[in-house]
């Protein structure tokens, strides 16, 4: 009980105000056009990803040699591809592929990155120096270059794409978390808990971790946008998701070889563009909402 009182009595620092998003923040995000447009586009993408098998007009694997590279018409709204598969259906299932990669990769990098940031910030000293210097070194690599190298080591596949993108994003989360931990560590109530003999694990998991999660959540939207772009680029290069699994980047690559048939590349490309655009908009809206609260 004494601990809680100390906490409420402490002078508020940015780290303390900066708690995880609450209902008020969601409302503030959705009161901007960026928030509304971003969230709406993502809701559509998420709907497609979850309900893909039930809403596709054709199975994405249905090959129809009688309807190869047909332009958009009433039967195939987005046209058909080089083996007569329905492009609309493949775009819908592509949402599932892309979002699986994005969510898994971002979750992986957030968990590992937060663990590294937590340890570095809490333990300090040489451990912190070494961990953070390694993170700096990883950050020096361009995203796609590091992802390509990891794919070269592991071989191209969906799960390796997740792993590659996940590893590439770790340093960002580690840095954010470490920064938060460093300022939380100095708060009176944490010091008091230490004095009262609370175990380190308890302080870290029950107090430091929940309070340092705010900035991580703010960064998630930007990380998702970068992850999607990287996944699409890898799949475009033929080093990400492998056919016949539909992926937007892979579809654009096939469309490029048949560029007279514009619909083959325009629609999947548009899907990537809109989804990345939506993640960026939402990221802007969330950042503004948090900034407003800090002021």
């Amino acid at each position, binding site marked *: 009980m004494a601990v809680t009182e100390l906490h409420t009595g402490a002078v508020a620092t940015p780290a303390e105000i900066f708690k995880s998003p609450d209902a008020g923040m969601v409302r503030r995000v959705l009161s901007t056009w960026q928030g509304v447009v971003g969230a709406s586009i993502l809701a559509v993408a998420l709907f497609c990803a979850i309900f893909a098998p039930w809403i596709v007009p054709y199975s994405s694997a249905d090959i129809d040699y009688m309807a190869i590279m047909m332009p958009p018409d009433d039967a195939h709204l987005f046209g058909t591809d080089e083996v007569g598969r329905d492009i609309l259906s493949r775009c819908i299932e592509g949402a599932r592929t892309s979002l699986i990669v994005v969510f898994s990769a971002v979750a992986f990098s957030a968990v590992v990155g937060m663990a590294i940031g937590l340890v570095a910030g809490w333990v300090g000293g040489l451990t912190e120096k070494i961990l953070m210097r390694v993170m700096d070194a990883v950050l*020096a690599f361009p995203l796609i*270059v590091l992802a390509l190298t990891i794919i*070269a080591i592991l071989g191209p596949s969906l799960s390796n794409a997740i792993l590659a993108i996940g590893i590439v994003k770790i340093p960002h989360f580690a840095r954010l978390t470490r920064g938060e931990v460093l300022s939380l560590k100095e708060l009176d109530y944490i010091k008091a808990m230490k004095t009262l003999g609370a175990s380190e694990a308890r302080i870290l998991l029950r107090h430091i971790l929940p309070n340092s999660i705010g900035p991580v959540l703010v960064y998630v939207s930007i990380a998702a946008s970068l992850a999607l*772009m990287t996944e*699409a*680029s890898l799949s475009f*290069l033929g080093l990400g998701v492998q056919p016949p699994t539909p992926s937007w980047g892979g579809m654009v690559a096939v469309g490029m070889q048949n560029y*007279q048939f514009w619909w083959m590349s325009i629609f999947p490309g548009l899907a990537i563009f809109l989804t990345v*655009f939506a993640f960026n*908009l939402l990221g802007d809206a969330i950042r503004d909402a948090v900034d407003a609260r800090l002021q």
Partner: protein
Amino acid sequence: MKRLIDYLAQLLPLLLIVSIVAFVLIDLLPGDAAMERVGLDATQEQLQRAREEMGLNDPLPLRYIYWLERAVQGDLGRSLRSGEPVTATLVRRVPVTVELALFGTGLAVLIGVPAGILAAVFRNGRIDAIVNLLALSGMAVPFFWLGLLLIMLFSLKLQWVPPSGYVSFAEDPLGNLKFMALPSLTIAVAFAATLMRQTRASMLEVLTADYIRTARAKGTSERRVILKHALRNALIPIITVMGLQMGSLLGGAIVTETVFALPGLGRMMVDGIFQRDFPSVQGALLVIIIAVVVTNLITDACYRLVNPRIK
């Protein structure tokens, strides 16, 4: 001068760690110098023997030192496919990527900085909203898709420039520019979007400063206030962002080179991965990392020299 030496002393550890990370990655890549010597069809025993002879079974730190020694002397091994020394391939390919990066950066500055100034001057107005929307779109458009759209419009429909291919500037200057036009524009768009946002933000910050009010009060023309007083000071963060974007620029170049069939570093790396030609992948990787790290260091140093307030 002392500051410069201090600064360089701080950088050495970073360079060292980057080179270690690069080495560990390269070491993890399948295939090694021994495979290079005995060929791809050699038996396991032949490979093992060659490894032993070449010291490839030594502990990792020792191998790192050997590798660094050879790399510093410019020996990066030979391509497993063509047998050509990797350094020779790099000498041919680096200029293509450098040209692409330079043109891309130039175009991005020409588009991004004026657009950012306009958005800041007319902030919260219609121009600001349009520029902002364009910037958001520019950041969301995938390089490969934008490249394809540009090919469809300018090569297939309007037939202004060839869709893909390359001749060097020395061979045919005009032809070179024609081949480079679309790829440069492709990588410039996302970069211009970032620059625009940074320019707008820095200009807005500077425009509220006291000395701007003083300049206006003295009766300086608005044009002069914006271009001379404000822009000069807003340029520092803009230049920093430019330097820090080098990594994404080179990343974009990799994908863009594939779309336009440009024989640069990115294609070297991607082709190398497909052909399991790992010395080539390593060589390209190393050059890209060095380029990024060195650019970041130069930017950082410039920033500190230009702005004495940063210690």
